[in-house]
């Protein structure tokens, strides 16, 4: 056993030991208390909500430092700070006493991938319940130590205090008393022990990023910053186009270069060299000799035709029915007016500032891979499959990563680095170029939405018929009070590699729905705000709409609309949270410019855990959402991405940022929901509606390009995909 104040930190361990399991880790931590929760919970499932024996969720060190472990990762959204502060709250210690280990498959329980805004609703409660139970165990240990009733004891600042005689014993001192592991093994998470919202002293208050000093000094080690002794740099030979198959290649020129290792493993060809430059040269040498078979690939110019023509067999007649109520056709027949429109959206890229990166190091048939991913455990499984070794021989570590936006659910760089490191017999570093990230990562799905609705003579919506083509189901259900509803979603074959994105399909469905709500309001000769409120019965949705409209001074702003200045509103709900956005735009039809000058957004996600981080998330979502709303669009042709770089793929920049006014509505009586996605779903329709208010022009396609304003418009004054698909 080490000295009483000595404890090993996670940094020491991750840098010095390649393979380790939780038992060895506990030994390394020295005499302390080991508590177990969860264990082998896989995926996002809540199956481990049942009482499970305690496993390694946390460890109390002899120096009073509490090591908490989670399979979740921090990819910029602030989960490290959030999970640290909830652990501090439940253990009644200061934040500085918590050391959080994240995303290490050897040490952490599998809390599922970091995505779908699930860290707050799923992992936070489990960490809280574990830490609260641990606090109770510590109190019982102190009671046993003193031979008193645990009811006489309370906990303050990492110390158990006897209320009668003022004795106290710190967690560190308790950890030094042996013979406690058995007691711990009999305890489990305790949801009833968590601190009620009214008694929170750490949660609910603003806490800054705990890693901020490391970030501003350059000390933070991102996945691409990992360096290992003797490390080489890897580079992969990419096909010239999607679907291209390697026919022949001469590896000899690179193989004969000193210091270079070349690996061909089926279609995978890669090299390693002592520097990234030499690796690049080696790949260029062999790329010249490569012959490829290519197959015809679709073009983004024909994207919307492609989607309609490539609907999956199972959805040929009818899509997946997501929402159904009343009798649609009869309601449409009776309606005073029926409107029918189509909306579309392009593929976009996450473009995180840190492209995919990984470092792999082999030792005795075991491999450790440091990589940037949301999904350490699924990446470990993928590595197992690709490398042909069991998961027990693989350790995946996810250092805090430079952005994700649901674009790093996969482990391409990890697999490449591990294969090349095995071939080279050295640690190997892989970091994708921006062009690779824009080409070989996955894109947010494009899609089309067809909708028609009927309104009665009093201006109420009586029928709602909706089909989403391909882009997905998030936020597809209409949140308004409508008596007759049919909502379906059809999947199609993908023209490019597609995957998840921040808020997934919600920006698409909400863009279409909230744009269409404005169309309906216009047809009913109603104010867009009043028209929405007319159809809202959900109090939480109404509260955000009211809050945003009031702060924005909606009625006054509407009165001040001119043909160059418009205002728009949109609202929605997704993943248990509620959002409403008012936007003011300035348009210049001659120059084809849309400028967002002011955004006011109200957001509510239940009880607020960290208001500082929540505000940052909402602000970031608004501006990120402006990118997809106004500019971002992947163009492709013949299997090649035509704008695979920041020079041709326009993302929001400093000069685009509007005046931001964020209202956070705290609901201590409601369970906390995640907040990293939903705040971005309403900005695009708010902008589209503001453009309509100023110009009378309805742009039905995302991105809402300013250049559309320059074209000659037909009488119908609309722009969107043609509606050739048959409606239900």
């Amino acid at each position, binding site marked *: 056993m080490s000295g009483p104040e000595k404890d090993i930190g996670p940094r020491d361990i991750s840098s010095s030991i390649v393979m380790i399991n939780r038992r060895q880790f506990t030994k390394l931590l020295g005499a302390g208390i080991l508590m177990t929760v969860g264990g082998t919970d896989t995926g996002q499932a809540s199956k481990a909500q049942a009482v499970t024996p305690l496993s390694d969720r946390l460890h109390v060190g002899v120096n009073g430092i509490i090591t908490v472990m989670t399979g979740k990762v921090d*990819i*910029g*959204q*602030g989960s490290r700070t959030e999970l640290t502060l909830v652990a501090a709250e439940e253990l009644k210690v200061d934040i500085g006493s918590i050391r959080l280990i994240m995303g290490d498959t050897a040490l952490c329980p599998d809390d599922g991938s970091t995505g779908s805004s699930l860290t707050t609703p799923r992992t936070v409660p489990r960490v809280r319940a574990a830490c609260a139970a641990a606090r109770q165990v510590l109190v019982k240990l102190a009671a046993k130590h003193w031979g008193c009733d645990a009811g006489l004891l309370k906990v303050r600042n990492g110390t158990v205090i006897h209320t009668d005689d003022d004795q106290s014993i710190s967690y560190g001192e308790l950890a030094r008393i042996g013979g406690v592991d058995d007691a711990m093994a009999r305890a489990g998470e305790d949801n009833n022990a968590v601190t009620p919202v009214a008694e929170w002293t750490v949660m609910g208050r603003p806490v*800054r*990023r705990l*890693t*901020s*000093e490391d*970030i*501003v*000094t*350059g*000390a*933070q*080690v*991102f996945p*691409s*910053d990992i*360096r290992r002794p003797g490390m080489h*740099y890897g580079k992969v030979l990419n096909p010239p186009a999607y679907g291209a198959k390697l026919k022949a290649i001469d590896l000899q020129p690179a193989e004969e270069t000193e210091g270079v290792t070349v690996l061909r493993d089926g279609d995978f060809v890669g090299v390693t060299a002592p*520097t*990234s*430059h*030499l690796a690049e040269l080696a790949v260029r040498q062999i790329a010249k000799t490569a012959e490829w078979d290519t197959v015809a690939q679709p073009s983004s110019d024909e994207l919307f035709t492609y989607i309609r023509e490539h609907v999956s067999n199972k959805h040929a007649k009818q899509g997946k029915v997501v929402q159904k109520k009343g009798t649609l056709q009869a309601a449409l027949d009776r309606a005073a007016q029926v409107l029918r429109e189509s909306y579309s959206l392009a593929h976009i890229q*996450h*473009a*995180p*500032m*840190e*492209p995919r990166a990984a470092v792999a190091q082999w030792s005795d048939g075991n491999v450790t891979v440091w990589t940037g991913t949301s999904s350490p455990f699924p990446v470990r499984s993928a590595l197992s499959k690709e490398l042909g070794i069991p998961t027990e021989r693989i350790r995946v570590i996810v250092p*805090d990563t*430079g*952005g*994700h*936006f649901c674009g790093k659910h996969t482990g391409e760089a990890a697999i490449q680095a591990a294969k090349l490191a095995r071939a080279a017999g050295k640690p190997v570093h892989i*970091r994708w*170029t*921006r062009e690779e990230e824009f080409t070989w990562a996955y894109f947010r799905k494009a899609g089309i939405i067809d909708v028609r609705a009927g309104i009665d003579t009093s201006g109420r919506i009586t029928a709602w018929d909706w089909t989403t083509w391909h882009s997905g189901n998030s936020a597809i259900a209409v949140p308004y009070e409508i008596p007759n509803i049919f909502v379906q979603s059809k999947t199609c074959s993908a023209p490019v590699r597609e995957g998840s994105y921040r808020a997934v399909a919600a920006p698409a469905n909400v863009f279409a729905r909230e744009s269409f709500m404005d169309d309906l309001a216009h047809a009913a000769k109603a104010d867009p705000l009043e028209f929405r409120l007319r159809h809202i019965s959900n109090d939480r949705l109404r509260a955000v709409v009211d809050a945003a409209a009031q702060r924005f001074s909606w009625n006054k702003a509407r009165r001040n609309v001119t043909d160059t200045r418009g205002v728009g509103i949109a609202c929605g709900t997704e993943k248990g949270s509620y959002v409403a956005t008012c936007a003011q735009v300035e348009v210049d039809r001659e120059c084809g410019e849309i400028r967002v000058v002011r955004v006011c957004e109200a957001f509510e996600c239940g009880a607020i855990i960290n208001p*500082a981080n929540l505000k*940052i*998330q909402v*602000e*970031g*979502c*608004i*501006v*990120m959402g402006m*990118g997809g709303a106004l500019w971002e669009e992947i163009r492709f042709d013949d299997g090649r991405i035509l704008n695979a*770089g*920041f*020079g041709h793929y326009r*993302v*929001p*920049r*400093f*000069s*685009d*940022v509007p005046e*931001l006014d964020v209202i956070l509505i705290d609901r201590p009586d409601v369970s906390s929901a995640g907040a990293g996605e939903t705040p971005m779903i309403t900005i695009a329709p708010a902008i589209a509606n503001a453009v309509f208010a100023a110009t009378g022009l309805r742009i039905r396609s995302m991105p809402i390009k300013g250049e559309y304003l320059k074209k000659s418009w037909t009488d119908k004054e609309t722009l969107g995909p043609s509606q050739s698909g048959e409606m239900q």
Partner: protein
Amino acid sequence: MTAKEAELVPEAIDLTVNGRPRQAHPRLYPRLLQALREELGLTGTKYGCGEGLCGACTVLIDGKAVRSCRTLTQSVTGKNIVTIEGLAENGNLHALQQAFIDEDAMQCGYCCPGMIMNAAALLRENPHPEKIEIIEKMDGNICRCNNYSRIIAAIRKVADQ
């Protein structure tokens, strides 16, 4: 580059990095970003695009903000380079570093070193810029977490001091 041109590239150059004399090898690390990260181990300077379009790799060369991904290593012979690791002096954070912390001007933080170095050069040239000048000078730096308004606030905080 032809073999003959490659021979014209010096094997080693001397430069000053964060106040210390260092050597770099342009043939192995032709871009300054590569020399800093791979040869000198200064990984605070980030790769973002390799085209000079995002600003993540910004460093100071003789006090001017430069994109290290586009800078030839051989071109900085004898120059004075400051990276994010060298911005704090005597253990005290640079005012911009402190302002970034105070204003929560980061999410993932990957763009921050480049943002801070670009802003440091801006404030050297113009210690009290207007907001519009800050936006103009910073517009080549991308933050995909879209924390721009807080970065502006952090720079303004220092500019107003």
